[in-house]
């Protein structure tokens, strides 16, 4: 196994593989999003399943694809950026498909946030949904009560949630594993119940009429028109959420390929040995909680501004569990896998609405099957490479 890709120049074949991979992925996603006929949806799902079965049976194919992406990062980046930027224009003005994309992107941010903890450091956290909610409420209250601009609420909401993250991380000094999991569950429930009970959070009815942000006079509530092409207003938030995902990926990469990421990985592997290497495990655990809350709050702020209406039920324990499932199904400590997990678990229940009554059942079964058949996740963690980058 050649884990460390030699710093060879990209060949034409590499570039072709990268292009085919990205275009193919975009195409399948688009097909799935726009499909209305249950036969087409099933066909796409079967196709994806077959693809993963092939990767499972022939690991060499996966290795080849990964090697291609590693050798041609510039091609991958430029082409990938072009595809995602042009994507809303390929949605044929379908605002529902765009809406699904926005939600999937926000969940991708949440899953990436949790991945810092669960993936890098194996710290359970069932309160990501609560941090998400705190971000959403903080941002919405600032906008509604004080008329603060959305762009200013973003950092404030993140700061509030980060304080919550540290608070949440505080018990991790002493509790571990299942006990720590319960502490986070308890925090999540307390936050949800408080949002549900306080008057100033609107109680169970939540907050309504959260204003949409605007930039340079362009309100996010209005459609985008470029060169006569018109895309629905959801596209504004698509780009906003996309920027957030890009930010999260950048942060994940930088932290992963640094002393901080290594320290997290060390305490994931063996906490005691990590301490003996000079790693302050308490600090790194609290840090993981804080980073998770920080990013989740960003997603919350954008969500609040996007749907303009939030209630406590958007931020329940089950939301936290869903985020956790995305990370585990997608592949711990692998940003790409985590994003795929987020898309899969957001889009699957939505597109299965045609199977109305069976959809949650189906999702539950799919999750169990994934965990049994591919316990390492769809895209498992990859070793770091030095010198090549």
């Amino acid at each position, binding site marked *: 196994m050649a884990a460390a890709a030699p710093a060879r120049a990209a060949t034409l074949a590499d570039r072709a593989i990268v292009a085919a991979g990205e275009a193919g992925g975009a195409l399948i996603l688009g097909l799935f999003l726009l499909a209305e006929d249950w036969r087409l949806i099933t066909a796409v799902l079967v196709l994806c399943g077959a693809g993963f079965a092939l990767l499972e049976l022939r690991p060499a194919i996966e290795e080849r694809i990964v090697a291609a992406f590693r050798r041609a990062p510039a091609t991958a980046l430029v082409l990938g950026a072009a595809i995602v930027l042009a994507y809303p224009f390929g949605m044929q003005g379908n605002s529902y498909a765009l809406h699904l994309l926005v939600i999937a992107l926000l969940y991708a941010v949440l899953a990436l946030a949790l991945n810092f903890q669960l993936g890098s450091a194996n710290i359970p956290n069932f309160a990501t949904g609560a941090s998400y909610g705190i971000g959403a409420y903080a941002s919405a209250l600032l906008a509604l009560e004080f008329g603060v601009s959305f762009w200013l609420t973003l950092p404030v909401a993140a700061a509030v949630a980060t304080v919550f993250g540290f608070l949440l991380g505080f018990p991790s000094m002493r509790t571990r594993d299942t006990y720590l999991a319960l502490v986070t569950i308890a925090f999540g429930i307390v936050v949800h119940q408080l949002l549900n009970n306080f008057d100033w959070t609107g109680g169970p009815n939540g907050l309504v009429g959260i204003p949409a942000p605007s930039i340079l006079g362009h309100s996010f509530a209005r459609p985008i028109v470029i060169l006569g092409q018109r895309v629905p207003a959801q596209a504004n938030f698509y780009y906003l959420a996309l920027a957030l995902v890009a930010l999260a990926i950048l942060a994940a990469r*930088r932290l992963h390929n640094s002393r901080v990421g290594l320290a997290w990985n060390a305490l994931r592997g063996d906490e005691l040995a990590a301490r003996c290497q000079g790693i302050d495990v308490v600090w790194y655990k609290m840090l993981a909680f804080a980073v998770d809350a920080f990013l989740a709050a960003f997603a919350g702020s954008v969500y609040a501004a996007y749907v303009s209406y939030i209630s406590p039920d958007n931020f329940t324990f089950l939301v936290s569990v869903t985020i956790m499932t995305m990370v585990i199904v997608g592949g711990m400590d692998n940003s790409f896998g985590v994003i795929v997990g987020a898309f899969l678990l957001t889009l699957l229940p939505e597109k299965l609405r045609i199977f109305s009554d069976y959809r949650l059942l189906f999702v539950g079964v799919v999750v169990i099957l994934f965990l049994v058949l591919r316990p390492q996740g769809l895209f498992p963690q990859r070793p770091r490479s030095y010198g090549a980058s």
Partner: protein
Amino acid sequence: MAAPSPLLETRGLTMRFGGLVAVRGIDLALGSGEVLAVIGPNGAGKSTLFNLVSGLYRPSAGTVHLAGEDITGLPAHRIAARGIARTFQTSRLFGDLTVIDNVIIGMHARTRTGVLDALFRPRRARAELAAAAERAEALLGLVSPDLLARRHTLAGTLPQADRRRLELARALASGPRLIMLDEPSSGMDDRDTDALVEDIAMTMAERPGLSYIIIEHDMRLVAALPGQVVVIDYGEKIAEGPFAEIRRLPRVQEAYLGHKATHA
């Protein structure tokens, strides 16, 4: 009073677990560049002694000084940062990380990148990591060229002898003043043990100022080590001196070599 304080000094070090006294009133002194072997039967309290010095346990009584500075009861990561590195009896590598990652993690206390640096000064963070990787490769080459060649494999897949070497390399990576090796030969056959003795001897020659405390069961290994031997039984130090003298003490033979001899 003129004599400089020893590198490591423990006085009356004691550890109680409930009613059980695992270590009782142990005094040790070790100078820079010295080697100390700790022997004793299973359950004598040798590993507990290591856990006390490395900060994993907080002693019930007694003190630990490193170069004259009181480090008693400091958390393990602080003690590691002050220059005490260790290995474990059952090697505790980061099995799902590569060999080189393991060594770089060993440098944690000597590197500086914090979370803000990693996020906002990526060039600096990357340069630091690249430098660490370079040093790690050099270190692996020193300990075992074979390990260097396998630096990108996962540590969990290594055979036992290589795990020991990697633990040694990881401990060296922190640039310590004192290394504590907990039964480096456990689980290894004679051939591997011989190779290990060579590796240890080589690192000693390479870094003359470095001090060692080695817990060992294998008497051939102990005999090959320079320096003093301390014998521990029932948590207490029962003898101290060069191996040649120690082995002849009746109390030591009775406590330790006696039943070991039946195995040989």
